[in-house]
């Protein structure tokens, strides 16, 4: 066994001889399972909420895996799964130009109306 060690990488002393494997095993077929994001709607809810993610070989198995992982405590009655790769998301780098301008436009909030006393359902 080689006596060469390195401490780079933050894993403590790791031997670096020629016979020590330094790469993870090559990707096996199951690494091809895509990531799915899971959305669940509760019995009393109107919308699906994001509850987490999972890996599955295809959409149908993803729905069933979501049933087993995310509805164990009777959280919901409807499940949507979407491939994470199909989701287009805003980038955190664009946070300021995308969202900051709406922070100081108080006139967009309907708070200046005075509701008369005898209007029952507003």
């Amino acid at each position, binding site marked *: 066994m080689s006596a060469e060690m390195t401490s780079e990488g933050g894993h403590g002393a790791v031997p670096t001889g020629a016979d020590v494997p330094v790469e993870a095993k090559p990707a096996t077929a*199951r690494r091809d399972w895509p990531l799915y994001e899971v959305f669940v709607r509760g019995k009393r809810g109107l919308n699906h909420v994001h509850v987490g993610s999972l890996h599955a070989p295809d959409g149908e*198995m993803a729905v069933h*895996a979501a049933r*087993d992982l995310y509805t164990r405590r009777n959280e919901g009655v409807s499940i949507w799964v979407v491939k994470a790769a199909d989701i287009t998301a805003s980038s955190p780098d664009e946070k300021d130009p995308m969202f900051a301008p709406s922070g100081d436009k108080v006139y967009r909030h309907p708070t200046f109306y005075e509701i008369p006393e005898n209007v029952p359902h507003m």
Partner: protein
Amino acid sequence: MHEETVYEALANAHDEGHWAFGTGFDEPLAGVDTTVPAGIDPADLGEYCVMLGDDALVLAQRLTQWITASPELEEEVAIGNVALDLLGQARLLLARAGSVGVLGRSREPATESIPDEDALAYFRDSDEFRSTALVEAANGDFAQTMIRLLAAATLRLAAFARLRDSRDPVLAAIAAKGAKELTYHRDHAARWVLRLGDGTEESHRRAQAGVEAVWPLLADVFTATDIETRLAAVGVAVDPGEVRAEVHEVLTEVLERATLSVPGWPADTPPRGRAGEHGPELAELLATLQGLARQHPAATW
């Protein structure tokens, strides 16, 4: 008023020590009328509940052997859920057997503080178990496990669907609840069999080998014992021969769609497991299930 949650109930229940190896916190048949309807022999009914309960208990134990060893995390939770459903069914059925006085020799080593269903699960020997070879067989690889689950769930669902009309109201209620669970178990197993059979060359080969290994275990699952015949005549139990056509049809359809070849159905043999004759697989399984409880029968926490 603040409703006590399950966790608070556990924390507040200091008064009596609970037996360490059971749940002990609630009676499974609490509030249920457990009187046996007229014209039904309670001993027969109890034995039948033991048959169905042991199938579930043994299969649950087999499935939980995949915990920490499943191919994927999602599958591990799924198999765990299936096993827990079956464990719940086992608990209800064995509690029903205990409520009509069928306890075998389990009460001798078990102290009085142990609930009936736990005494039956932990303190019976192999020869008192009434499970079939189908559920006792070792898991094999993942493909074989799913094919065995498919066969066992199809068989059990076919029986439970008919048991919903049983004359014993407790058995009917257990069957109604169990049928919903078993529908999902059968569906889960079928999905895997389809994907493994109609998958890669390796998965197809393993799935076919799994079929060849599981098929002989179906030899005694359609043969009725005397108890089942008597109870079926009074509308309590389901004669296992009745479900043969449905089980054959479902298994054939799934295997054919999975591009697997269906072996010839084994010839009927007399019931072995149902008569208490078991191989070494059950003894090995029970050693793990019962070992700790038998070493410390009066442990509480």
